[in-house]
């Protein structure tokens, strides 16, 4: 037999151009419809995690700035926003949705530059979904009585919102769109490492002629978020982030009477039965854990494989992992981009060490990582025990922990056995098994024969320590109404 000719299957680089994006050297805060300087002096660098180069300088807001932003929001609520007809409010949101679509490429490139996520994802997921959220909630503004049978609802007034770094613009849309549709005004803080698309969104608000003060953006670290959440004139708080911080928020606002929704961590179980379409399942598992470098609260970070198909699933999984391209987020071929920050890379590497120490079997495909920037190759642990920390704690990186099971009852018990309850996945060809499994999972979102799908019409949120309240759909409106 002839030796097969060795073919080079490597893809030629296909980098997206950055020429279409303008980034200011320095950004102030967005308060009352204008970019303003902080009352303090402090600035911090926003860097590109793929090459560690500085993109811009961001303002660290002070408590006085937060106060100013809340006052602007209150003022806008009293004087303009609450006086507008709901249909008019909706039209502003439609305008914003359209502007997001028109400026999609600019926003997608900026999102990848700033956050390290592959352009494929920011272009095809983050930005289109952000626009879709504004579009969806725009239409609710003048139809609220249909969403709440038998209830008379009213907006809270000023909503204080704090969002994470994994989907910067999308999370902004998730929070701002329903808040405005229901008649609230907003003070929002992006994560310190990913403020740029939020500040670009401020430009879009100006372009849409959104009345001044309806949305105010204050940038900075955790203390700024805490100042927003604890501000006495903020009526409702919405937070997406870690369970640890979520608990601190629940405690700090106790007795304040503030409305509160928390979207916190997760440790989703992805369950493959022997009767599943295995190729489809493996592709789903890859998407579940390696999408956005695993920086996804609902990431399928635990895989449960039925013992009878363990070997074949692992073989297919490793094979597929070998073909994942890790590298330049702006390259259209890239599957896994840069880890968002040095700090997060340290956390992930810490967990990889823990996994090895706990005795799990470690696997990474051979792949060359860029010399600068923050990178982590797709990682797989097998022989994981239920009590291992890598099976219990949220890692927020491209690390998958694989366990096996024999019976339905066993896997239900194992899958539900974490404090989290955000999402779960089930792969089987049998309809009755799907419904049994999806109804038994203690999780807010269950994907059957699919994973990591999002849509503005579809409620998203957790059971247990993954938080409370829902975002998306008409259920997501309730969070912004009394």
């Amino acid at each position, binding site marked *: 037999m002839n030796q097969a000719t060795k073919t080079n299957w490597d893809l030629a680089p296909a980098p997206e151009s950055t020429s279409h994006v303008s980034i200011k050297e320095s950004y102030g805060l967005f308060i009352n419809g204008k970019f303003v300087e902080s009352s303090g002096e402090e600035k911090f660098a926003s860097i590109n995690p793929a090459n560690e180069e500085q993109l811009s300088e961001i303002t660290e807001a002070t408590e006085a700035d937060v106060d100013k932003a809340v006052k602007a929001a209150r003022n806008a609520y009293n004087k303009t926003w609450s006086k507008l007809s709901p249909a008019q409010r909706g039209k502003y949101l439609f305008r914003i949705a359209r502007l997001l679509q028109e400026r999609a490429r600019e926003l997608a490139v900026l999102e990848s530059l700033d956050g390290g996520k592959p352009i494929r994802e920011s272009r095809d997921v983050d930005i289109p979904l952000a626009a*879709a959220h504004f579009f969806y909630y725009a239409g609710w503004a003048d139809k609220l009585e249909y969403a709440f*049978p*038998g*209830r008379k609802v009213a907006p809270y007034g000023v909503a204080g919102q704090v969002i994470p770094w994994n989907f910067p613009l999308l999370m902004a849309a998730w929070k701002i769109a329903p808040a405005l549709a229901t008649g609230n005004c907003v003070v929002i803080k992006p994560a310190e490492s990913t403020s740029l698309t939020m500040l670009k969104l401020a430009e879009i608000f100006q372009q849409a002629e959104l009345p001044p003060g309806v949305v105010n953006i204050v940038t900075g670290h955790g203390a700024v978020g805490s100042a927003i959440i604890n501000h006495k004139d903020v009526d409702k708080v919405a937070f997406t982030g870690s*369970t640890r911080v*979520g*608990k*601190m928020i*629940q*405690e700090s606002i*106790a*007795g304040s009477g503030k409305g509160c929704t*928390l979207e*916190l961590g997760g440790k989703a179980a992805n369950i493959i039965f022997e009767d599943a379409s295995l190729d489809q399942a493996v592709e789903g598992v890859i998407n579940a854990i390696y999408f956005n470098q695993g920086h996804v609260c609902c990431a399928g970070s635990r895989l449960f494989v039925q013992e009878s198909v363990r070997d074949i699933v692992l073989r297919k999984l490793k094979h597929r992992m070998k073909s994942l391209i890790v590298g330049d987020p702006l390259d259209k071929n890239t599957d896994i981009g840069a880890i968002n920050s040095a700090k997060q890379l340290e956390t992930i590497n810490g967990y990889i060490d823990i996994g090895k120490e706990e005795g799990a079997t470690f696997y990474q495909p051979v792949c060359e990582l860029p010399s600068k920037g923050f990178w982590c190759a797709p990682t797989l642990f097998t022989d994981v025990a239920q009590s291992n920390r890598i099976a219990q704690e949220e890692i927020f990186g491209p690390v998958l922990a694989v366990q096996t099971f024999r019976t339905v009852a066993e896997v239900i018990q194992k899958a539900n056995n974490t*404090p989290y309850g955000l999402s779960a996945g089930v792969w089987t060809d049998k309809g009755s098994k*799907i419904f049994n499994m*999806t*109804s038994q*999972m203690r*999780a*807010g*979102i*269950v*994907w*059957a*024969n*699919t994973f990591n*799908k999002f*849509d503005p*019409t*579809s*409620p*998203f*949120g957790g*059971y*247990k*320590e993954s*938080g*409370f309240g*829902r975002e998306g*759909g*008409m*259920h997501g409106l309730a969070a912004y109404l009394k």
Partner: protein
Amino acid sequence: MAKDKPTSTSSNGRLSVLKTYKMYVGGAFPRTESGRSYSPAPAGKPIANMCLGSRKDVRNAIVAARAAQPSWAGRTAYNRCQILYRIGEMLEGRSAQFVAEMELMGLSSAAAKKEVEASIDRLVYYAGWCDKYQQVFSSVNPVASSHFNFSVLEPGGVVFLVANEESPLLGIVSLLAPIIASGNTCVMLASESRPLSAITLGEVLQTSDVPGGVANFITGKLDEVAEHFAKHLDVNHVAFDRDDKETLVSIQKNSVGNLKRVRAYSCDWSDVDSQGPWLIHDFCEVKTTWHPIEKISESGSGY
């Protein structure tokens, strides 16, 4: 004096048998493990030696409620409807006893009668909701991809209910009924000053086909047990219906351990507008399930 009022002696000089009020946990009527008691005297005169429930009693009741929860949630909605209606039937049959007890606790005869009747009607009202709230609150979501995607309500799990002080029966029923309607189980701390009807309601529940553990009553003092149920990791929700801001705040703070959903109420339960399916919704989670749709021609959505 009403003939069936439990007093020491009846008109013919017969010495009455006084009722020992125990708690209601897991379908049985245990005394408190602590062996302690207290003597509430809402009308100035002590009405009974009530069990002064302890931390351990709270724990036992939560264990019973947790054990009962999956099978209660697993019953059909129709079956829960019938059981809630059955509670109403049994309460109707024993309404005289409740009226008498409420008079003993200081309510006027007219107020007591009104309270019992409103409680029965409320049970019947929620019985009717058991198989309907899901249709009101669920949705099929028209996602922009070829998936079938729907959201339903699921019970949150175990609810701790702190019943109000003023309305010894209606206050409990107005929250208990929506809590168990969806398949939650419940541990209740009865009114501290007017606890008798709670325990007698336990007797009604026990004879109403309500499985043991679905509804449990503890009697005792809120400030002794609040910290323990708020910190307990097997309680999913707290329903707080007392005019006690300070304790509410401490419960909210102590609830962060497992992110309990704490809901506070201050309703006039005698008002029919205070009832509604949103109270069922308050103790539920929304679950969204996605599944692909086979669409060969295009990547459209089928719904």
